[in-house]
């Protein structure tokens, strides 16, 4: 039986060349083509393909973000024209990827490897997508949006819409214009990757958006209470207050 594959790319011609190259191939069959990350998310959930040809830069949800919110990840063949950060992440994880434009032979070689991995799923080491995502963010420096999932609902939050971030055990809660969203990430991750000119960690448990501050009042000898425009009252440690003061 042929493997089911989906092509995800925002450029029609880029999708076309993959499907044209695969005409007559007896191992895979293209079951769907998607032009953006959300379409792809829906299609992958519904059609459960074995293999996805995935572009990195796309509207709405990029390739890595799509993988981050997928419950079950199919085998992926990454394709990118020029994204040195993505390429770095691929290389650090020994993931095969296609650089556009690519030849038919190159596509078939990548396909061959993918098919082998699918057939021997248990034995072959699978690429660590989460680690790759982290390395991608680390290479790019700051993030400009956060993607969260609750059940099957995926929300993309632009960082300037975040009010504050609160630590909750192994998770963080993101409070934003778009509601409250839980995310399985560390405070350290957000401290490092939210834009440093707008976000400050004022406490072990809180990172706040500076533009959301409504008032700051002394609380105990060392600590302060920061009131945000959304009404939240958060405690700032003495160290956090010191950091905060350098911005005000």
């Amino acid at each position, binding site marked *: 039986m042929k493997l089911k594959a989906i092509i995800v790319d925002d450029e*029609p011609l*880029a999708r076309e*060349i993959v499907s044209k190259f695969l005409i007559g191939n007896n191992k895979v069959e293209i079951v769907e083509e998607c032009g953006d990350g*959300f379409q792809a998310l829906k299609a992958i959930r519904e059609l459960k393909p074995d293999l996805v040809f995935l572009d990195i830069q796309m*509207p709405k949800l990029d390739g890595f973000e799509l993988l981050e919110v997928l419950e079950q990840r199919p085998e992926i063949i990454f394709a990118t024209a*020029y994204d040195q950060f993505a390429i770095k992440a691929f290389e650090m994880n020994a993931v095969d990827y296609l650089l*556009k*434009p690519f030849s038919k032979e190159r596509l078939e070689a990548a396909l061959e490897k993918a098919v082998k991995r699918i057939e021997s799923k248990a034995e072959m080491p699978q690429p660590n997508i989460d680690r790759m995502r982290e390395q991608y963010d680390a290479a790019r420096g700051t993030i*400009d949006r956060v993607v969260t999932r609750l059940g099957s609902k995926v929300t993309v939050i632009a960082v300037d819409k975040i009010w504050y971030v609160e630590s909750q055990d192994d998770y963080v809660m993101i409070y934003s214009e778009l509601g409250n969203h839980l995310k399985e990430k560390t405070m350290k991750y957000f401290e490092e990757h939210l834009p440093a000119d707008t976000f400050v960690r004022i406490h072990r448990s809180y990172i706040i958006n500076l533009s959301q501050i409504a008032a700051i009042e002394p609380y105990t000898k060392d600590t302060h209470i920061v009131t945000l425009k959304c009404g939240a009252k958060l405690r700032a440690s003495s160290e956090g207050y010191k950091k905060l003061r350098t911005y005000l």
Partner: protein
Amino acid sequence: MLSRLFTRNLWLSYITIWIVIAAIQFVLLNRVYDIDLKMAAIDGVVSYTVFAIIGFGLWNMVRFSGKQKRNQLEMVSYYLAGMAFTVLFWLGACYLILNAIAGHNKPYIVFLTNSMTVRALAGVFFYLLIISVFYLLMNIRELQDRVVRETMLTESLREAELNLLRSQIRPHFLFNSLNSVSALTLTDPAKARDMVIKLAEFMRYSLNVAGEAMSTLEQELHHAGLYLDIEKVRFSDRLILSKEINDGCFERKVPAMILQPLLENAVKHGVYTMPGQANVNLKVHCDPAFLQVTIGNDFDPDAAPRKGTGTGLSNVQKRLAVLYHRSDLLQVNKKERYFEVVLRIPVS
């Protein structure tokens, strides 16, 4: 160094000053001390010719001291030693020469011997004066040198920066376009050929224009048009373009490679971030003072755009600032779902 310090004017001033001082001494000797005209003249000429010659040596001394890092005590002893040497050498040389010329004139020689203390004081005074003036001159020269060097440096940096800002072809755009060409060779070879020609023409303009500051609107529009054609092939019906260009603006001078980055910005924030169709609107009109270009695009307010935002705009902003020394030529209007930049180019 000596030649650079003593330009023609400075030479003249230097000689003139000594002539004036010699003349003052001549009058003084003749009127106050009753020295006869001939001896007063010889005394004045000999004394200050010798000092003027010593002056060259002092210039080298000042120059040398300027190159060495010394503390204040060292500086003071350096100049005191210089002073002692100068005054002694001057008095000794004058005495020997004047004695050789007028040895027979006993009253004059007696006067010369008696006046040595006063002459020594005058020597100290001239020494301090000459050192101060040289010091000042040296510092002025150094300052001028530094200003010239710094201007040259900023000029060359500016040039390099302008070239860089102008000639940026984004690799992402280039490789994706090549990928589209690759796809078209399978389905529509004629269109593929057309796209390759457009890409080549686009790149050639970007490369050629890198050395030139100004271009015409017509050329700029043609180049931007090539860019948009290529993007239209990549995104087909997702990119909707409308143009409205007043006749009579085409010959206006505009900075080279100024339009394409703005259109690229519009495409990037429109088509790259929106899954559906995105409009890009280009309007150009001109009046006697300005050429105004308005570029607008739809964008998705929920999609935080990916990195690289603003670099295109800030590059254009920087270039305008360098070329026109103004920061108000690029205006950005951001509405809820529509982004617009207004570029005004003054008629030079």
